């Protein structure tokens, strides 16, 4: 609009002040967006869950395993199409500094249950054939430089000893949120060494109709309720959400810090705007004499605040969006699929608008109210 050159010229009067203020806004919104993204990423795990998969775990505790005999009994439950299981291995690789999940799985049924892990067919077959082989995620390849055919030794913590595996395949997750740093090997490889201790940690079932989930869940839990290993069955979505909730009140922490950050920057921006106005009372008086109405003067100052806030927001939100992409942060690890969502951008833009109003309203109101005659008398 035609008044923009005037607004920008006013901001350029103190270039350093304007630049520093814009940078403050950018930093604040970068931080705000990143914090919010932690929350959205933790929630995203449950969002990408399949509605057709159901997890059966021991109801006493997730860490207590279930009997192998359940496999057959679960597959005869109505609506259940396929059954697989897995066990948490929890070993240490190298100095243990980089943590990654290791699972003992039933190869054919497990990979069939999770088509989201895309693996070249020949690698899949090689994995099926060899009991001491493993499939690893491409994130582990990036982290450790492993190749297909490499031998990898992991120290068992729950299952003592040094365990050597041969990598026969590398998987690529269909979505980043699935994580790309899992290590999967044969359940039987674990079982043959500790036949007295190893039973499935949890079962995963595929059901034919998502709407049947509640019925399936109830049937299974009722069936095993009074046995030695009572079950708790839930949708994959609920299961993932439960895991995310283990972080504690992360949401509260992130939003509290986010608010503090925005408020701190509001103070910086408001201060800059007020300093700008203090130095311009005579100019405002002259403009009113020329014919600028009170309302127009008010609007010009709000636009000035908007230029600062929106430019800063653009830079800050832009950096927050680009950084994970550029640095590859969020490929596996605790926060797989870390990326700034549209929702976060929308909230960030709203914050920028609020910043505009909050920082601009007082100076704008003062300028609108400025009595021209008194201001001019002061001047002359």
């Amino acid at each position, binding site marked *: 609009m035609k008044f923009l050159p005037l607004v920008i010229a006013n901001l350029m009067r*103190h270039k*350093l*002040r304007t630049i*520093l*203020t814009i*940078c*403050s806004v950018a*930093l*604040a919104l*970068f*931080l705000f967006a990143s*914090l919010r993204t932690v929350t959205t990423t933790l929630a995203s795990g449950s969002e990408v869950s399949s509605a057709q998969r159901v997890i059966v775990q021991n*109801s*006493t*505790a*997730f*860490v*207590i395993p279930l009997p192998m005999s359940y496999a057959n009994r679960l597959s005869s439950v109505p609506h259940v199409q396929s059954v697989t299981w897995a066990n948490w291995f*929890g070993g*240490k690789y190298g100095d*243990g500094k980089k*943590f990654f999940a290791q699972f003992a799985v039933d190869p054919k049924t497990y990979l069939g249950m999770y088509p989201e892990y895309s693996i070249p067919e020949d690698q899949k077959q090689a994995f099926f054939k060899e009991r001491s082989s493993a499939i690893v995620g491409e994130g582990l390849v990036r982290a450790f430089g492993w190749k297909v055919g490499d031998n990898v030794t992991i*120290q*068992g*913590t*729950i299952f*003592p*000893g040094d365990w050597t595996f041969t990598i026969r395949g590398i998987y690529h997750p269909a979505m980043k949120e699935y994580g790309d740093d899992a290590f999967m090997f044969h359940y039987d490889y674990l079982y043959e060494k500790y036949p007295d201790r190893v039973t499935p940690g949890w079962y995963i079932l595929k059901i034919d109709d998502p709407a049947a989930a509640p019925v399936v869940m109830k049937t299974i839990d009722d069936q095993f*309720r*009074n046995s030695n290993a*009572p079950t*708790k069955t*839930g949708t994959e979505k*609920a*299961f993932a*959400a*439960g895991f995310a*909730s*283990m*972080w*504690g*009140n992360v949401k509260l*922490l992130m939003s509290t*810090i986010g608010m*503090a*950050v925005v*408020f*701190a*920057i509001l*103070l*910086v921006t*408001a*201060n*800059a705007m*007020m*300093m700008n106005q203090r130095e311009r009372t005579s100019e405002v008086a002259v403009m009113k004499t020329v014919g600028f109405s009170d309302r127009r003067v008010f609007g010009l100052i709000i636009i000035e605040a908007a230029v600062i806030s929106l430019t800063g927001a653009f830079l800050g939100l832009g950096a927050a969006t680009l950084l994970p992409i550029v640095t590859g942060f969020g490929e596996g690890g605790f926060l797989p699929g870390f990326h700034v969502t549209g929702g976060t951008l929308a909230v960030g833009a709203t914050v920028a608008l609020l910043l505009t109003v909050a920082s601009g309203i007082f100076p704008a109101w003062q300028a609108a109210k400025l009595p021209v005659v008194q201001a001019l008398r002061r001047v002359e």
Partner: protein
Amino acid sequence: MKIPLIYNLRSVRQRPVSTALTALGIGLVVAVFVAMLALANGFVAALVQTGSSDNVLLLRRGADSEMSSGIPREAVSIISASPHIAVGADGKPMISPETYIVINLQRPGGDVYSVANVVARGVSERAFDVRRNIKVIEGRRFASGQSEICVGSKLSGRFANVEVGNVLRFANRDWNVVCRFTANGSSFESEIWGENEQFQNVFRGQGFQDVAFRLKDPASFDEVKRTFLADQRIQVDAHRESEFYASQSELLGNILRVLAIMITSIMAVGAVFGAVNTMYAAVSSRTPEIAVLLTLGFHPRSVLASFLAESAVIAFIGGLIGCLLALPINGVVTSTTNWASFSEIAFAFRVTPTLLLSGIVFAVVMGVVGGFFPARRASKLPVIQALR
């Protein structure tokens, strides 16, 4: 000649709003700094507090947490015979074999899947003496052979049915809550304790997960470690109890600390920018006075020092405000899952005097950094120009 501070005070009073906004901005950064580090400190402290340096914790060789460990009965008998174990007042060795399991308790107000992993520790009578600082504050210890449990004080209020007199149900059994205990703020306060035999029946069969004992001679730890390493009959590793629990806090503790520093650093840059703006404006509005001061014979260095001092004082006040804002969080209890042990631990935010002091120092540093260039400009003012 030093410029009297009263000059700065009077000048600051002329622009109260700008000064207040700058101080408040710095204050908020300090508040976040103190609060986040208090969170990290609280978490670490709870774990560090859990172990004492004259206790030894034995786990199966290679196990990195109590949960993944397993020690058979026979091994416990062998261990009990060790001459390194301190003897209690009653003549019996101070040794505590324990069962360790993590159960799921539902969080009140959440759905069925919103659960927390709570440690259920099977113990013998000895545990209350061997594990330090355990104090029963309500009720009595569980009786042998009964389905009774004692509950750590931090579980109160965070889960249902954990008060003395309640019946808590887990593992398909009802358990009477007969006592509540504190443990000096350590992670034991987030645990449920019951009789070894009861828990073994329900959970894990006949073995134990860990054995803790008091050293007869605290200095003998290294020898103890070597002895157990060499013993072929049992496959255990000896850890100094304090070091073990401290190492369990490392992962999350470091993450929290790094997060705190990263977030407050970014905020600090913003606050410093605000201070820079304020000080430049202060300098330019006081240009005539500065010129007069310089003409009168005040050294440029004094002008520099004067403005730096002003900036530092504003920041100092901001730091005080920030500390006051963060102080109420001390003692607030929060919880998270310690991924190292896969169990939930409740702990209190911990604001220490050192932390508050660092907050203030941080504030002053922000003020000095922000005020430096404007102060330099003031000291380098071309006098003639300024007087015109």
